[in-house]
């Protein structure tokens, strides 16, 4: 059955595999038999990984992001988590939408399933 899936990326992107491997899981899930709807949410320290200044190649993000977008997956940054870390909307990469914290929370509540990394 096709599901509405939210993948939360919660950790700072460097030095651990959770951001790139969470993106790998997101695009893998979006490309599976059921073609699940996938929304990737950068939240908590994960918002550092949504910044334009991050070197996506060095983080092995580039290919996974391209695959995710091809599967109609979307990427969202949590403005409440950004505010807590002094990350501005202007800092966020163009292919990541910035949503207010309450919209992010509602999206998570409405998902059929969530995964977190």
């Amino acid at each position, binding site marked *: 059955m096709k599901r509405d899936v939210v993948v*939360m990326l*919660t950790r700072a992107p460097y030095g651990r595999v959770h951001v790139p491997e969470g993106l790998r899981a997101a695009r893998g899930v979006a490309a599976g038999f059921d073609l699940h709807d996938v929304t990737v949410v950068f939240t*908590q320290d994960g918002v550092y990984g949504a910044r334009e200044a991050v070197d996506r190649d060095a983080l092995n993000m580039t290919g996974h992001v391209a695959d995710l977008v091809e599967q109609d997956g979307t990427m969202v940054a949590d403005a409440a*988590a950004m505010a807590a870390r002094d990350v501005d909307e202007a800092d966020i990469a163009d292919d990541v939408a910035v949503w207010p914290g*309450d919209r992010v*929370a*509602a999206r998570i*509540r409405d998902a059929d399933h969530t995964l977190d990394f």
Partner: protein
Amino acid sequence: MLYLIDEPMAEIGLRTAAGDPDAHVVLIQDGVYLTPDVDAQVSAVARDVSVRGVDLPPDVEPISYDRVVELLVEQEVKSFV
């Protein structure tokens, strides 16, 4: 909806639960050290409480893993663990 909450994801987890009038928060693992300020039913996994020697506030109910499974079959679950 059931919300399983540990410390590392408490920031997004408690914020998500706070917007749900039917939220039932279950503190789990190091989450039992938390004293969440949410307008919701709050439980805590009994084993995680007892091994840590945590004194729960009177309005937080200790529950077994069996009960957690019953609850998450009865209703949707979101994990922040």
